[in-house]
């Protein structure tokens, strides 16, 4: 039996490297009818803000070639209701919980971190920095290394929880952002969030999404995600969590080869709610077949010479 344990941040050891991506796993309990969610490495909640958010009006999702665009607009029940209504259920389900947070400005993030600090049943925070910084004129925190680092430092001050910073792929140099947030005290990185895209209804001559643009996810983006994970994993010394288009154990294993310590399953959970649990099984079987004893031996073991 292969040992699937991975350490995704100092001291945070998960039973396996399969996590669920924020915004694609609801608050977690919605998946409980389909499999035992305590069997996953961890679940990451829908992004939470200080106040509840209604999200975007109009059409929110549309399919594209091997992918989908979403413009949900970060709808969520707010941190208070999460703590009151959802977290207790997740604890009963014995899920390992990582909370994804976002805000409109730095103090939102800091306040969220402070509020979640020390709460039993929360294993780590994932900071979504692909959000427009209202104070800086709507420029995303995640596209500027300095702004991202300041944000992470501010969050770092407010909590002793391990911090995973979730990077945006819509940047010229993701390695620069990764290094800056490592420096600023992030314990770990997760990438990638969605690529910014758009879809048009030709016959109606209109943008399809209510928000005009939306985030592209699914198998279409896997090559971009894999490249970024590979680049970042080589440049930083903190653990990297790979995300983007993972639908099978083989996809997940490719990210691990590229240097990811763990992975998150996103859009694939919409297609089949059992995907994440099947990926755990698939990874185990593959590594067993390879005679691999510890998954940590496999992680980052990509030969540098191409075929």
């Amino acid at each position, binding site marked *: 039996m292969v040992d699937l344990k991975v350490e995704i941040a100092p001291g945070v050891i998960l039973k396996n490297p399969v996590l669920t991506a924020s915004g694609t796993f609801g608050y977690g309990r919605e998946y409980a009818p389909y499999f035992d969610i305590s069997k996953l490495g961890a679940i990451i909640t829908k992004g939470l803000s200080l106040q509840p958010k209604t999200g975007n009006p109009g059409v*929110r999702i549309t399919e594209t070639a091997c992918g989908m665009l979403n413009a949900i607009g970060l709808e969520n029940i707010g941190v208070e209701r999460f703590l009151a209504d959802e977290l207790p259920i997740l604890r009963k389900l014995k899920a390992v919980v990582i909370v994804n947070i976002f805000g409109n400005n730095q103090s939102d993030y800091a306040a969220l971190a402070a509020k979640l600090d020390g709460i039993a049943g929360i294993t780590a925070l994932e900071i979504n920095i692909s959000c427009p910084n209202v104070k800086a004129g709507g420029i995303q925190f995640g596209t500027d290394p300095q702004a991202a680092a300041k944000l992470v430092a501010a969050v770092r001050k407010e909590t002793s929880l391990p911090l995973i910073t979730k990077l945006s792929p819509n940047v010229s140099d993701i390695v620069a952002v990764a290094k800056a947030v490592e420096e600023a005290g992030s314990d770990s990185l997760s990438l990638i969030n969605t690529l910014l895209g758009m879809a048009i209804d030709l016959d109606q001559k209109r943008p399809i999404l209510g928000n005009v643009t939306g985030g592209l996810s699914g198998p279409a983006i896997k090559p971009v995600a894999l490249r970024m994970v590979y680049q970042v994993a080589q440049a930083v010394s903190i653990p990297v969590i790979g995300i983007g288009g993972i639908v099978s154990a083989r996809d997940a294993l490719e990210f691990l080869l590229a240097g990811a310590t763990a992975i998150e399953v996103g859009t694939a959970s919409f297609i089949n709610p059992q995907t994440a649990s099947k990926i755990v099984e698939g990874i185990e079987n593959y590594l067993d077949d390879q005679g691999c004893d510890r998954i940590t031996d496999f992680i980052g073991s990509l030969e540098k010479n191409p075929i």
Partner: protein
Amino acid sequence: MYLFNTEIVCNQKLSPNIFRLRLKATKDFCREAAPGKFVMLGTDDSLFDPLLRRPFGICRWGEDWFEVVIKIVGKGSCQLSRLESGGAVAIHGPLGNGYPKDQLESVQKPLFLVAGGMGIASIASHIFSALDSKQSLAGTFLFYGAASYSELILRNELTAATAIGLHIHTITDDGSCGRQGLVTQLLATELQNQPQGRVFACGPEPMLKSVQNVLQKVGSEGYISLENRMACGFGVCLGCVQTVLSEDSKSGVETAKVCTQGPVFPAQEVVF
């Protein structure tokens, strides 16, 4: 609800672009099937175009099979419509709330079923359910509208239900069958006479808005079944939400997930 892979029993062309697929199903699945519920259907999991599964109403079912009626509007429906006997399909369902059972089965008041276009797939599920379980449809009226004669599907099967009491009125946009006009005109006329009637409607959004108006004018109650775009079908993507009236929220409205809180909503609660 259940997740399983199954196969097509048979595929029958009902019109140039509408197909009825019968699929094998587990007994558990069939026990949970009910009028107004739906399934997410997918094909080959190893190819990612189309990527997501697609929602279709459960139109009829037996002990170990069910049927969907699919109109080709894009690549997902096109691909499904081409499957032949033995073709592989992945199922997730039954999903959604379905039509409220107590309302369906209360026989005190007349029941008005209103179907526009493919809305018939959902509406017919109640008719077939009654037919297959040998219940009466006395006092039940079907108002069924479509663009033209060729799109009025399932005519024989629906006509069979007149034997158990169903009244059928058809109408087409082009007058090629039944009256010419919109199905809501039929409803409006009948509701004037019988305002105590309960209404169940499914069809395109403009039709449902119009049903909502008619109901409001007459002061009658009813339910409408929505068909918002869906990515997951089980309440996790928040892609399908619909604005609805709310007593809790300050603004008086909130968003509801059509896939889990619907697809059937009390007509007056939906804010289009």
